[in-house]
Structures are given as C-alpha cells and as structure tokens.
C-alpha cells in the first residue's frame, strides 16, 4: 500500500483498496455445489454468481466467514440478455470494536453474490428468516421487478401504490408508464414514448 508523502504536490489519492477475499470463493463454491455459475475478482470486490437454490448455503458460508452485515439487495434487469434478472447481494465484514482506521489489522471487506433466477418466473429464497433487514429490499425488488421471494412474510408493494399494475423498473416498462393518472379532461390512449435522442 503506497504511503502518502508529506508534500502536497505529490499526495495522490490511493488506489481503491481491495481487501482480498479470494480464499472465500472456493469455500462458497463448495457450499453452493451445483448452483454455482461463475466467480471473479472485480475491481471493487470479489463476487460469485449462482442460481437461487444455492443462496441459503452461500449466505450461511459468508456469515460463518464473518460477513455479518447485509448491505444491500438489488436487482438489475439485463434484458435482452439471458438470464435476465440479476439479484445482487452485498455483504460487509467489519472488525467490530477495532479501529477501522488502522490498516494493519483485520480490515473491513465486502463480498457480492449475484443470483440469476428463472426469466419467466423469477423466484428466490427470502433471507428474512435470519437477516432482519432483508424485509424491505425484498419487497422493493418484488414491487419494481416482480421477483418473488419464497418465505417472505409480507410480500406486497412498498414504493408504488397497492393497486399498481406492472413492474416499473423492468426494461420493457416504458419510462413514462402506460397511462397518465389524473390528466384534466382525461387522455385517451397510451402515453407517447420518449423520442430517442
């Protein structure tokens, strides 16, 4: 790790410091078994791609390795590529109680899991049983993308109104939606699409 020099002219921002978690990948791959798709070391963190069946095993392996904070559950719609949906889980391992500024000790690290469910009927096991903060992001993934989370106690829309039709953040949902709500005088027909610039 380059030490910053004292002269203001030469102080440069450090390269993004990746804590290597490469030794984790074979452990998780072993835990996941047949659901394993791919693993790589990206510039920001290590990641593992898998099918939904192996999610619980992967998460348990991560927790055993010290990754105790679920940072985020997000969805990306890669259509027209297949598999289309990528449910991304980011985990953080921190050295609780130790000085996080001290770089010689066990440093915080991150890990990413990318789950690729079925295109037509995307179902992923829910993590709400053992991770309390998975509740809302899973509801949001259902609301905006239509991913079903098996075992979620309360899977209903969270950001859109309860009676909204469609999953707005999917790539086949137009930016302006399908109908304008509350246009004075009403407007018949669909909303004109945005002109591609």
């Amino acid at each position: 790790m380059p030490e910053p020099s004292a002269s203001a002219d030469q102080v440069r921002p450090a390269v993004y410091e990746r804590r290597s978690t490469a030794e984790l990948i074979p452990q998780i791959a072993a835990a996941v078994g047949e659901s394993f798709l791919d693993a790589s070391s990206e510039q920001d963190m290590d990641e593992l791609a898998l099918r939904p069946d192996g999610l619980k095993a992967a998460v348990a392996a991560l927790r055993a390795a010290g990754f105790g904070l679920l940072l985020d559950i997000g969805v990306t719609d890669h259509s027209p590529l297949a598999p289309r949906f990528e449910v991304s889980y980011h985990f953080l391992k921190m050295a609780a109680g130790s000085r996080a500024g001290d770089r010689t000790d066990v440093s915080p690290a991150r890990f990413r899991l990318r789950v690729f469910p079925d295109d037509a009927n995307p179902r992923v096991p829910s993590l709400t049983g053992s991770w309390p903060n998975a509740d809302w992001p899973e509801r949001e993934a259902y609301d905006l993308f239509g991913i079903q989370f098996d075992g979620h106690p309360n899977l209903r829309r969270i950001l859109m109104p309860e009676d909204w039709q469609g999953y707005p953040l999917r790539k086949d949902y137009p930016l302006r939606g399908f109908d304008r709500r509350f246009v004075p005088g009403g407007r018949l027909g669909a909303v004109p699409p945005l002109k591609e610039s």
Partner: protein
Amino acid sequence: MEIGPQAPFMTTKLDEFIAWAQKSAIWPMTMGLACCAIEMMSIVSPRYDTSRFGAEVFRSSPRQSDLMIISGRVANKMIPVLKQLYAQMPDPKYVISMGACASSGGVFDNYAIVPCDNFLPVDVYVPGCPPSPDALIYALMQLRREIEAGGKSRVLARNA
C-alpha cells in the same frame, strides 16, 4: 377596489378590511414533500423571515391553515393524501405549487411523478429547482396581491 358604481360605501370598506386581514395572516400548512420543503423551512429562518408578513405560523393541521404549499414532487401514492388534505382545509384556501416538480413534473418525466395541478386548483406557481426562499416569498407576495384584489375573499359582494 371597484365593485361597481352602485356598491355601498361601507361594504367596500369592509371588503377591503377583510382582504387586508386575510392577506396579513396567511397560515401555511406543513406540507413538506421533498427538497423544496427545506427551502420552505428556510423562509422561516432568520435570513428570510416571513413572520414580517404574518406567515411564519406553520400549522400542522389542515383545519387550521389557509395555504397549502406543495413543496416537492408529488408521487402517485401521495395524490389521495393531498386531495384529502385539501378537502379538509377550510375556505378561503390557497395553493402555491412550489418548484418545478410540483408545477410540471420538473426533471422527472416518468411514470412516478404527477404535476399537482392535475388534481388541485393552484393559485401561484413558483419555478425553480428548488426555488430559493426569495422566490417563495415573492410567490407569497403575489398571493397577497391576489387576495387583496378580491375573489375568494369577497364576503359581502358575491353576487355583484
């Protein structure tokens, strides 16, 4: 302030007095939606003090307020809430649509944001993203001029 050559002198003076009283004590409702709400809170701060105009008393209850400042973008889920709040306000009531998002959708030309004049009658539109507190105070001045010019505040000469 002319209602007509036949209007009696005392009722015109009473109308003027009522208009003056109403414009000097417009009580807004705390209807802070998004970023514009922060600039709306700033008009109460010492730099842009609206208590000079009698309007610093932000009432939380719609039943006690005269003015609804839609400060921020209106999402789909919020529409029935705003309609109910507007219905709960007693007459005469005014609406200022503050900011680009409330007036026209603003930066967000998408499925989620609805301009507020689609479902509420608006008296003054304030452009800006967010409008500076000066702009909102100018809008308040416009509203005061509107109140003074009559219309909603006419009590005695409605049929004239």
